[in-house]
């Protein structure tokens, strides 16, 4: 056991973190090899329970990870109970630099960990070791613990959050099905633009180089990211959208759904997820902007056709939403039974749309009026839930005040004047607020900064594209053509690319040079 401990604690030594990249790389590789040898000899499995408390996961991450995996191979409840505190400690503190060398192991651990949510054994551990006060609401907490730790671990591996892995899908599925979205938000709110498995792979010289982009080490080769399928990409964004819908973050939900419906698809191809997302996208668009969204130009023609056919009912709802009376909307809603909306998985969403109809109609009045009495609002707008105007001025007042409180409406309600000269009314604030110079430049600077932050991503991608086989082939062809052209012109022949001015059937081609 002492030998084992000595090997495990060997890397990194206290000075290792200051080592230049080449040495660190070499040392890390050797260490992984040594740990693997120990594992093969069965030593790790034997001494894991004793060794785990002695090793600091934040320092000797590779060793700790190996021990954890060995311990997890035996899945008896009792054992797992003992391991869990270590597992939690590890996921919260591991050294992301070291883990790049043990990608496959890390990935396995995360998969195993995600499975825990289904197993009941975690309850006791949680109860006794981590948060004794939470006993009683365990089922809720066990999932939230898993989600929280998974999200933390994923962000520790990839702080930019821009690379999709299979664990992302596990995370979002778990978060959504167990209704623990909050702890997953740090991951969900990141914008994914990279996908492992892109060709050609740009293996960095040293995995430990802290300056390289996560795309360099989250690859199938390191094991940290396995190759994803189109289905994973679509499911992740669709589930992410569902999470945002649940939180009523309409803008983020809309953006996620738009990512799904604009997923590149070959001619005649479309996925069910895309068609389903289109329906939700229509409804979320209404909630977000109060009017039907228009399809982005990048949607392929065949996908468009499928959307228009499968989403007919939803497009009709969108159109009805824009009319001034609620009748059309109620009629479109009534065309399908409640069960049919449930079958689409959209009943809740569509009910929300109905309840937001009147709010949007009141908000739209700001384009016409500067001041309007509450009584007029009552007469002009209808609720799509009842199909009639609100019953009393008080109800209008409540609704308007709720809208002002939630930030949907900018304005204030002025109570009626006692002598009856002015009724209670709503004053809309100006639509276009003039920003002060400082506020404006701050906002612009903020946007500029966000755009500038994209630069490394662009650089990474452009580097990848420049080394792709197609691009190199294209450049080579281009160069060859240019060479041909200049050679052809020099020799006085008629190369085909030479500019043809006129073609006379009797004489032949005439060209200018």
């Amino acid at each position, binding site marked *: 056991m002492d030998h084992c401990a000595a090997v495990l604690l060997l890397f990194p030594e206290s000075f290792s973190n200051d080592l230049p990249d080449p040495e660190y790389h070499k040392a890390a590789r050797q260490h992984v090899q040594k740990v693997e040898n120990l594992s093969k000899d069965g030593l790790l499995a034997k001494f894991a329970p004793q060794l785990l408390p002695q090793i600091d996961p934040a320092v000797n991450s590779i060793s700790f990870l190996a021990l954890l995996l060995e311990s997890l191979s035996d899945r008896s409840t009792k054992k797992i109970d003992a391991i869990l505190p270590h597992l939690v400690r590890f996921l919260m503190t591991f050294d992301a630099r070291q883990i790049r060398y043990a990608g496959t192991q890390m990935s396995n651990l995360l998969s195993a960990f995600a499975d825990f949510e289904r197993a009941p054994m975690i309850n006791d551990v949680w109860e006794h070791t981590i948060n004794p006060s939470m006993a009683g609401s365990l089922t809720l907490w066990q999932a939230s613990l898993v989600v929280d730790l998974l999200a933390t671990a994923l962000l520790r591996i990839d702080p930019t959050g821009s690379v999709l892995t299979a664990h992302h899908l596990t995370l979002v599925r778990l978060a*959504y*099905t167990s*209704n623990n979205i909050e702890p997953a938000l740090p991951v969900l709110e990141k*914008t994914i*633009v990279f*996908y*492992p*498995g*892109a060709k050609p792979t740009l293996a960095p010289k040293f995995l430990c180089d802290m300056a390289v982009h996560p795309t360099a080490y989250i690859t199938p080769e390191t094991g940290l990211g396995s*190759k*994803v399928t189109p*289905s994973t*990409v679509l*499911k992740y964004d669709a*589930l992410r959208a*569902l999470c945002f*819908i*649940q939180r*009523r973050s309409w803008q983020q939900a809309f953006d996620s759904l738009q990512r799904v419906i604009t*997923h590149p*698809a*070959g*001619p*005649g*191809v*479309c*996925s*069910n*997820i895309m068609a*389903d*997302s289109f329906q939700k996208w229509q409804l979320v668009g209404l909630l977000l902007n109060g009017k039907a969204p228009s399809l982005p130009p990048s949607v392929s023609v065949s996908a468009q056709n*499928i959307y228009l056919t499968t989403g007919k009912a939803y497009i009709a709802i969108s159109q009805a939403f824009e009319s001034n009376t609620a009748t059309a909307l109620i009629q479109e809603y009534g065309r399908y039974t409640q069960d049919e909306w*449930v*079958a689409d*998985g959209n*009943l*809740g969403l569509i009910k*929300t749309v109905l309840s937001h109809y009147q709010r949007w109609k009141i908000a739209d009045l700001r384009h*016409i*009026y*500067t*001041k*309007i*009495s509450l009584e*007029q609002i009552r007469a002009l707008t209808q609720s799509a839930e009842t199909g009639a105007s609100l019953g009393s001025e008080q109800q209008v007042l409540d609704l308007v005040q709720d809208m002002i409180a939630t930030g949907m409406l900018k304005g204030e309600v002025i109570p009626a004047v006692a002598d009856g000269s*002015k009724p209670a009314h709503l004053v*809309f604030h100006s639509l*276009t607020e*003039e*920003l002060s110079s400082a506020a*404006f430049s701050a906002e*612009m600077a903020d*946007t500029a900064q*966000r*755009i500038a932050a*994209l630069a490394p*991503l*662009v650089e990474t*991608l452009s580097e990848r594209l420049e080394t*792709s086989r197609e691009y190199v082939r294209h450049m080579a062809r281009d160069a060859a053509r240019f060479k041909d052209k200049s050679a052809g012109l020099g020799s006085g022949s008629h190369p085909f690319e030479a500019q043809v001015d006129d073609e006379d059937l009797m004489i032949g081609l005439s060209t200018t040079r």
Partner: protein
Amino acid sequence: MAEPLLQFFSLMDAQGGVIVKEPPKFDLDLYVQNYRGRTRFDRLFLIARCSVPLCIDALKAAIAEAKKGRDTQQYREAVECLRVASPHDPDAIFDQQWLDATDKVNRVELNRLSVELKAYKNNLVKESIRMGNEDIGRHLESTGDLHGAAESYAKMRPDISTPKQIIDVAKHLVRVSALKQDWGMILAHVAKLVGGHSSEDEKVLHGYIKIVQGIACLGQERYEDAAFSFLDVDPTVPATVYNEIASPNDIAVYGGLLALATLEREALEKLFLGSPTFRTFLELEPHIRRAITLFVNGRYSACIAAIEAYRADYLLDIYLQKHVPKIFAKIRSKCIVQYLIPFSCVKLDTMNAAFGTPDHPVEEELIAMIKEGVLQARIDAIDRLLITVSASPRSKLQASALETAQKYERQAIDKLRLLGLASADLELKGRKGPGPAAGISLPSMGDMGLIEDSIMA
């Protein structure tokens, strides 16, 4: 209103027709004298069905007109109407003898012409075939078979030998299309008429083309194009060239009204009032000229009053009728917009005094205009004011700059994502090989074992 007349107009109302109760300002006889051909009957019949005061007179004139021709269907329709509107009128009795005789003559004539055409075809003389087709076309047109007439006229085309014949064929086809109110076909036929004629012919033809183009554009609601077409008509072109379709007075009314509806003040003054050619037409209809002058001088309510006075006349015009509400609304909204330009805030009562009527307060119209974006203003319903919105250029610039920046950011991220997907080869592809066509190929969200959306939870 007499009982039968009331019954007649309730019938017309049920059919969705326009009913004009005010007497128009024109004299029916003088009005009809401006026209030639089938359009005379069509115009009379339209007036009969729409104008309460002129109904009986117009029907009787229409019956007389129909009896002059050979279209028995026209006669039947007119007499049917008169029988409802005025059952005791001597004209309300079918002249069965005339009907039978005319039908018989028509049949015999068609037969004769068909036999003649057959003979010409056997002889292979192009000119005769062309004339044979033309004769059949004319005959069918006069007996009311407009579709057949158009077909026969179109058959003349292969046997044309001179430019004049091209013009003749096109004119026949334009006339029939105008009777059928097929605006697209008018424009198609006119397009074949341009170029390749002597200068004198050219001038006359140009006038003709511009008139029919204007009418076709009016029919297609392309009001501005129509206005410019009418503006281009040369007043020296004799009315006989085009009076099977319109009269010089019509050109003044159509051109003037459409210009009022679509053009700005400067353009109206320079192009219409200042045009020596269009001025000649405007002199025929002084009220249009007055309305344009009033508009140009900023007297908007007087301008609206001037054209409102003639609303009944316009509603009885065969081409204008359908468009009167739209054109008037456009003129009104233009007047309101122009009226508001010097003010930042106007009392709604003042607006009502200038543009509203007791039945139609101007407020609803203003709301509609604001919604359409025609009017940049907001209504203060509490203090009853109309406040014009002058977007400050500064805030406009700020808003557009921020929007551009955000749009750029969004697009950049989206492009990056699409490039990322492309480089990882994650595009959805169809199945290869036999089997059901590619298409939906992934499990749906439902299949993924998701819980029902629990947004309301």
